């Protein structure tokens, strides 16, 4: 998809805003700013281990996320440089989860490396194939991840687990910032092509799955542990609806767009043309 100089400039400014704020207010050091001395092993459990291991596993795909992201955005400064920063920040998340698992003794090195081997034995591929659709996906996925980490932070606070509370404070704040960037870009996309952007968003919402689906070992079993995932209700109410509101649209317009795409795809099939990718309905789980 070609992109005009004006669009590139607006993406650059959105990135600058993100980067400026990150440099001034959001940078944190995984060893110096995280109070590792407050590790309280008595507050750990296998449930905590499964949560952290699952989050770590998702973050360990950062090489695939960034490689794919760069391929999609490499000719647009604002988007490509965001990918670089995003990858750096997500890499810290994986590092901190790994450190916690090992330092706490929740996993031995051998167990951790066995898990890492399973993760690196699979490859994450783009769930959607245009930059705008991946921006929609990014906005939704970062929102879901923020909600999951925010819930973990609150849980840690309630249980007096200071170290975990601080870790999830830093990480959820990063995820909120990432969501903010994608949301800003989507607002710009709406200004350029409202109908097309809503069509892409409806397609992504209809096919949305978290990145760990199909990649993290025993993912469905892990989701049974409280806090690993997020319910579809919660995701709709706290993730999807607020995004629609910010973009100046609503669920009715989203659904109308999805139904229009289906009708167009059906007409194409009836004419014997290869139908464009149609929305398959994803499981009711974020």
């Amino acid at each position, binding site marked *: 998809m070609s992109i005009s100089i004006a669009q590139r400039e607006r993406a650059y400014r959105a990135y600058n805003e993100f980067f400026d704020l990150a440099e001034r207010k959001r940078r944190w050091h995984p060893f110096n700013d995280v109070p590792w001395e407050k590790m309280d092993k008595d507050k750990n459990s296998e449930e905590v281990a499964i949560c952290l291991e699952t989050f770590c596993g998702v973050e360990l795909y950062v090489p695939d996320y960034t490689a794919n992201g760069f391929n999609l955005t490499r000719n647009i400064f604002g988007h490509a440089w965001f990918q670089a920063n995003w990858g750096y920040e997500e890499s810290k998340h994986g590092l901190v989860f790994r450190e916690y698992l090992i330092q706490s003794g929740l996993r031995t090195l051998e167990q951790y490396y066995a898990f890492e081997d399973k993760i690196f034995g699979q490859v994450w591929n783009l769930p959607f194939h245009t930059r705008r659709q991946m921006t929609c996906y990014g906005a939704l996925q970062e929102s879901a991840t923020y909600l999951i980490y925010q819930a973990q932070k609150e849980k840690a606070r309630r249980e007096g687990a200071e170290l975990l509370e601080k870790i999830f404070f830093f990480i959820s704040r990063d995820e909120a910032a990432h969501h903010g960037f994608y949301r800003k870009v989507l607002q710009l996309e709406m200004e350029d092509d409202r109908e097309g952007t809503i069509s892409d968003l409806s397609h992504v919402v209809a096919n949305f799955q978290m990145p760990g689906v199909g990649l993290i070992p025993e993912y469905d079993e892990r989701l049974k542990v409280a806090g690993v995932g997020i319910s579809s209700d919660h995701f709709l109410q706290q993730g999807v609806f607020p995004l629609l509101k910010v973009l100046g649209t609503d669920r009715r317009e989203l659904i109308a767009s999805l139904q229009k795409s289906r009708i167009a795809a059906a007409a194409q099939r009836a004419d014997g043309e290869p139908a464009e990718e149609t929305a398959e*309905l994803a499981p009711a789980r974020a």
Partner: protein
Amino acid sequence: MNDAEIKTLIGEAVAFADPRLVGKPLSENDTIAELGITSIAVLEIVGYLEDKLGVRFPDDELAQLNTIGGLSNLIRGHDLASQPAQKA
């Protein structure tokens, strides 16, 4: 609306949103998840009901739609709200 009318309307809405479920008998206790109805299909069901009833349900009322009974309650709630108050 009586219970039978509500049940019929919900059956239509579910079949509209998810053709796999055309003709499937639905009970109030059936969960959305067990029926394999996706989040986006829930929004389509609600949109269908809104069009048929000529109303708009607030987004926050959709949070509890975990079962077919939840959909019935959504309609009943609207029905009650739209009826004029009875004098004692």
